[in-house]
């Protein structure tokens, strides 16, 4: 074979790789979570509405739930809030909130003003729990199954498409155990 064809061959391979790269480019900001298929990290954090009470991950076993990371400082969280309220009204599964590095009073008034879609809200002042869940921006949402396994992670606000195309299909069809 003409060894001078090697550069052209290598170049063709490169172009193919770059073409595949472009197709994936819009998803570049989304890092795949290493938690998928693994146990949801345990936590025991104060409840936003009564700081003397504790929200424990162990109490959530046996149910599907959506774990939503948010903060009053986060613009996109405001955008997804409507969708979260819809999810709550649909009563398909509970939404558990993680108020990340936020001001408690502001968080409470936000929920009073905009509506509260959460069954419980855990307060993470130090950010340790968020780190355990591999959170790197808000909003993020995690779908957890009754065995406590993280089934899906959504990076970014909860949109209707994400709800109908990614989350609902992962739930069992006839009713949900424990709801």
């Amino acid at each position, binding site marked *: 074979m003409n060894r001078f064809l090697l550069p052209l061959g290598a170049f063709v391979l490169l172009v193919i790789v770059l073409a595949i790269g472009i197709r994936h480019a819009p998803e570049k900001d989304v*890092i*795949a*979570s*290493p*938690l998928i298929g693994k146990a949801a990290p345990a936590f025991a954090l104060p409840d936003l509405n009564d700081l003397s009470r504790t929200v424990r991950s162990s109490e959530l076993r046996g149910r599907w739930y959506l774990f939503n990371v948010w*903060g*009053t*400082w986060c*613009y996109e969280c405001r955008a997804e809030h409507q969708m979260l309220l819809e999810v709550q009204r649909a009563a398909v599964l509970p939404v558990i909130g993680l108020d990340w*590095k*936020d*001001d408690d*009073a*502001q968080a409470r008034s936000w929920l009073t003003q905009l509506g509260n879609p959460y069954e419980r809200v855990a307060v993470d002042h*130090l*950010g*340790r729990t*968020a*780190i*355990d*869940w*591999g959170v*790197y*921006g808000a909003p993020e949402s995690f779908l957890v199954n009754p065995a406590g396994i993280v089934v899906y992670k959504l990076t970014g606000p909860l949109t209707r498409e994400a709800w109908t195309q990614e989350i609902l299909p992962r739930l069992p069809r006839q009713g949900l155990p424990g709801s």
Partner: protein
Amino acid sequence: MSSLAARLALVLLAALALGRVALAVDPTQMPTPQLEARYLALTHELRCMQCQNESLADSPVELAADLRAEVRDMLIAGKSDDEVRAFMVARYGDFILFRPRFTARTAWLWLAPGILLLIGAAVLVRVIVKRGALLATDPGPVEDDGRS
């Protein structure tokens, strides 16, 4: 607390917009020089997940400060460098490391320089041998005084 929130928002915006424009100054003091050196090395080796291509040491965002605090606490608690890395990777995936681990999937990357050098050496040998042989049939000096 609300000034904290406002600052957070500003810093987040700034960091998301451009990255390395506001710096992080990290006056964390470690109890011993060895821990200090390990802390600095690790925070430079771990990526800030919220920024575009900055290390934990350099990033001004709150998440980076939180992660640096984790590193500090782990080192003071006596964890090894590998345990710190494993902690981060378990939560954020391989992307958080600036030094890719040597696994079956990244072996090609780490072996590439060595393999390229070997190929280069092979090319060198081939050409030099060939040209050395041609020297016998290549009469006459080179023009000029032969040096430049």
